């Protein structure tokens, strides 16, 4: 795999690769196949690609019907229109019955950039996390995106894969394990544990290096699975380190930070802070500028860790 591709391109490539091995895989899109990158699958397997037009609710319920027929539908659109607009369809037609539907929802978080707050999904993890039986993967690079698609196929039930838009470097290796519900400790440390997910992993790693230069030992955990969350790893970090900081490109309400807080509550005396979008909407701008404005930077992680350790 070329190093510099976007997660969505990796998602599209993964569908083509998996599609070659399993005829039951079908891909559904809602007029965004050139953005979700399912166009690669549509080209490779035109008879297995179903465009539903700009009608996400119907796409989700139809996917449930296709799953009841023994197919494995990958529903692809922007996170806001999948997890958001079609929420109750995902709840009642998919999650409530445990239908084997996979959601590859792209353009999540602030990294949509210029499109602005109306298109920046900062609540999709929260919405999906309250659904019983839903598995949630937030891959951090192209390699992990492909592993998430493969892992989703091993699960008999609904899976949400959060596919970020930007082109990014691979920070995991081909042989890095991707076990659903098992976090990857990317760096060990015993002063503070930075638990991050998705695009925030590189920021967390940069922050840990900066902290080390200042004599602070920081662990970095890649929480690629938000549900089921790796409770053992969280508690181990909370017991070894003096503080835990979560970092996500999502609202701090209901996402990774909340999930980690729920695990630690009553079980840990470690300091704790959540970095993410602080209960506000996004806005237009270059992704890097937005990350800076909303505190999704290594600098803010460093400052937050140091404040907790003081």
């Amino acid at each position, binding site marked *: 795999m070329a190093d510099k591709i976007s997660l969505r391109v990796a998602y599209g490539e993964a569908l083509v690769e998996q599609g070659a091995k399993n005829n039951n895989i079908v891909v559904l899109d809602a007029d965004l196949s050139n953005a979700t990158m399912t166009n690669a699958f549509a080209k490779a397997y035109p008879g297995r690609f179903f465009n539903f037009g700009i009608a996400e609710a*119907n796409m*989700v319920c139809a996917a449930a*019907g296709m799953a*009841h*027929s023994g197919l494995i539908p990958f529903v692809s659109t922007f996170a806001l229109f999948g997890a958001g607009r079609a929420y109750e369809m995902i709840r009642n037609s998919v999650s409530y019955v445990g239908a084997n539907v996979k959601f590859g929802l792209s353009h999540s978080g602030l990294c949509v950039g210029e499109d602005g707050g109306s298109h920046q999904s900062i609540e999709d993890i929260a919405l999906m996390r309250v659904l019983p039986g839903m598995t949630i993967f937030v891959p951090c690079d192209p390699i992990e995106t492909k592993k998430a698609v493969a892992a989703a196929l091993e699960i008999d039930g609904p899976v949400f894969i959060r596919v970020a838009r930007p082109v990014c470097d691979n920070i995991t290796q081909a042989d890095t394990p991707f076990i659903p519900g098992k976090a990857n400790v990317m760096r060990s440390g015993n002063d503070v544990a930075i638990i991050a997910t998705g695009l925030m992993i590189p920021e967390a790693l940069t922050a840990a290096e900066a902290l080390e230069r200042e004599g602070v030992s920081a662990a970095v955990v890649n929480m690629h699975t938000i549900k089921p969350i790796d409770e053992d790893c969280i508690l181990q970090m909370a017991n070894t380190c003096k503080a835990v900081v979560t970092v996500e490109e999502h609202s701090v309400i209901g996402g990774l930070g909340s999930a980690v807080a729920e695990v630690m509550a009553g079980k840990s005396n470690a300091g704790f802070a959540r970095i993410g979008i602080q209960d506000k909407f996004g806005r237009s701008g270059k992704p890097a500028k937005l990350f800076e404005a909303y505190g999704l930077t290594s600098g803010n992680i460093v400052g937050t860790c140091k404040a907790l350790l003081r």
Partner: protein
Amino acid sequence: MNIAQQQDKAKALRADIVKMLYHAQSGHPGGSLSCLEILMALYYNVAKVDPKNPKWPERDRIVLSKGHACPALYAVLADKGYFPREDLWNLRQFGSHLQGHPDMQKTPGVDVNSGSLGQGVSIAVGLALGAKYKQESHKVYAIVGDGEIQEGLVWEAAMSAAHYKLDNLTVILDNNGLQIDGSNDEVMSIGDPVEKFKAFGFECILVEDGHNTQAIVEALNRPVSGKPKFICCKTHKGNGVSFMTDQAGWHGKAPNEEQYLEALKELGVVVNG
């Protein structure tokens, strides 16, 4: 079954529906009584089903999208032998497999969960697409309410059914004219559903008497090719029980003991407990 036998069967099933709701002391009699003949046309006459093998892969799929009318579905399924008739009296009770709205994971013979209005039609589109993709010959039937077609999702589903030329899909409208807050026209006019579905690319059939099982069977059996089918059945809410007939107030209300006994008397059923 001949016509007289079908009518007797309808009366007995209506009595079961009223009894279920009386025991549950909640549920939806009006819409259950209005769609009964549609279900009978399917389960006793047209649809390929096997009560001994509810998950038979070649069975026709029946989606009661207006899931609140499930007492009618449960009465029919019990009569067909999917589960014991005695189960009916536990409708909506804790531990019963008969949920307030259809649940495919709990009730033998229920093909799809439904009740969140509009979603059943859309799931039926997926089932029909799945059958086409897998080159399976079974058919898919979706029963919708007329209030339900106020949901935009129904029209998203209709659009996609025509786009994908789903001639293995039939959408059947239980057109009783009433919904919770009053008549369709008072609440939100639905216009002429036949013209609307025609405009969406369906082959449309109007059944003037939606309580004439034979007429529904004929409409179901009429062949179509290259497009989905829509059957509008003109029905009466609460049909078969005089004081419930055409009364919006009986949408979601259970009968008390006096009403229950009165209904059974009208249906010619002797109460034995």
